[in-house]
């Protein structure tokens, strides 16, 4: 029996919310999301070994990649290839991505995730990262030594050949899924097992988008990702879209299964760099907005130091 008004208020506040509980799967969604974020900065796994490369290529040749249909055209006759608008737009992005210079040492990302402002600086040569933050209770600055693969490591890791790249991305997605499934087993041992419902094309889209977001992926590899997306069925493209800040953008979208929901990304038509990425799942939505991505040869100081 409450004795004072303060006790009574305590009882009222608790009694009125006793029945509320976090939706099952919430933690899993957060970890899945975190996994997607981490893929941008994780250390590159030991480069694809000869055996793995051979397996990947075998997978690619045995049906993961679209098989070339026998040509109906006679010898010496060129077969007409009709590209969809989406493929033309993605091919254009591939050409522009290849033309982007890789020369400057530091990549500076500015993000605004209200109420936190964040500027991340990536060193192309060492993979070191400086994360400057303001607001949201976050620590003001963090230095992560070799927090990202270097540009050279990424160039060595990511195949330039389209079939090999597709096989590599599917293998990469499967490895991530195995980790997610193990986590789901641990967190809810009595629940139904976690099943990845994505198609191979969905996995290619998700992984390609993740790598396109990794700031140190060299231009040649970014260009190869766009070319691969142009050849991946199911990718929706809107050439004249705008992101949530109203910036002109090329929108790429893929819907794949209830767990992974729909992923929408907005790319800058001129620089081909990401502007925004949105997720919409059954019980989970998320949005990352990059305010700017710039390149410099001198490491910038903490922009929030005097605020």
């Amino acid at each position: 029996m409450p004795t004072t008004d303060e006790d009574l208020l305590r009882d009222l506040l608790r009694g009125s919310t006793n029945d509320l509980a976090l939706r099952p799967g919430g933690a899993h969604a957060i970890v899945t999301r975190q996994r997607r974020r981490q893929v941008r900065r994780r250390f590159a796994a030991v480069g694809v070994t000869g055996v793995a490369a051979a397996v990947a290529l075998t997978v690619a040749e045995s049906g993961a990649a679209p098989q070339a249909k026998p040509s109906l055209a006679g010898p010496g006759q060129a077969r007409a290839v009709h590209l969809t608008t989406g493929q033309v737009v993605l091919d254009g992005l591939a050409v522009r991505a290849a033309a982007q210079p890789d020369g400057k040492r530091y990549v500076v990302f500015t993000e605004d995730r209200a109420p936190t402002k964040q500027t991340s600086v990536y060193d192309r040569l060492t993979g070191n990262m400086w994360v400057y933050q303001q607001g949201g209770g976050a620590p003001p600055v963090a230095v992560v030594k070799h927090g990202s693969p270097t540009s050279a490591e990424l160039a060595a890791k990511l195949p330039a050949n389209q079939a090999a790249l597709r096989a590599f991305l599917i293998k990469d997605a499967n490895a991530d899924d195995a980790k997610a499934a193990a986590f789901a087993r641990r967190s809810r041992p009595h629940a139904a097992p976690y099943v990845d419902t994505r198609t191979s094309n969905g996995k290619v889209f998700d992984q390609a988008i993740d790598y396109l977001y990794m700031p140190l992926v060299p231009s040649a590899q970014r260009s190869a990702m766009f070319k691969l997306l142009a050849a991946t069925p199911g990718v929706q493209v809107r050439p004249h879209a705008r992101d949530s800040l109203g910036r002109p953008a090329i929108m790429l979208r893929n819907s794949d299964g209830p767990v992974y929901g729909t992923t929408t990304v907005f790319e800058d038509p001129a620089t081909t760099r990401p502007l925004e990425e949105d997720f919409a799942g059954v019980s989970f939505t998320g949005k990352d907005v990059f305010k700017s991505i710039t390149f410099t040869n001198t490491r910038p100081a903490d922009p929030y130091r005097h605020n």
Partner: protein
Amino acid sequence: MNKKQGRAFEAFVESEGNNLLRLAVLMTSNYQLAEDAVQRTLERLAARWDRVEHPKAFCRKVLTNLVIDDARAAARRPREEPLSPTHENPDPLAQDGLSSVELRPAVLSALDSLTPHQRAIVVLRYFGDHSDAEVSQALGVAVGTVKSTASRALAQLRTHPSLAGLFCPADYPAR
């Protein structure tokens, strides 16, 4: 987040997730907004799991700031009214016979009469059972401000129609 950290994060969400959601519902009066705020809070915690020494305090601070910021942003937009009320206000005096679902509209309606800051202080202090020092740390205000604000907010809740007659008259501050 490595395996060990993943397990620790999972255990933390298992033990604290429901409390965070209840805290957020009391601060927002809206289940969807509360769920969204908890999700954003846990997302930030997951991103900094290896750097956060006191996850509970971190969540308390982030969740409170998010809710207050959202409330301020909402105040700048035109007010949204539901098309039809989903619950009738029950009589809180009949608390013994009421379930949480029946009691909630009366309590949330009374909390709606407070400012976002007052509300955060009341919820953290009385629902979260946090000390004045912890509340002051979470909100970035002086301990004295917490005490005086809580006292004023409690006085306001005593006179709110949905909780009228529930509090002890003897406890009313002298006027």
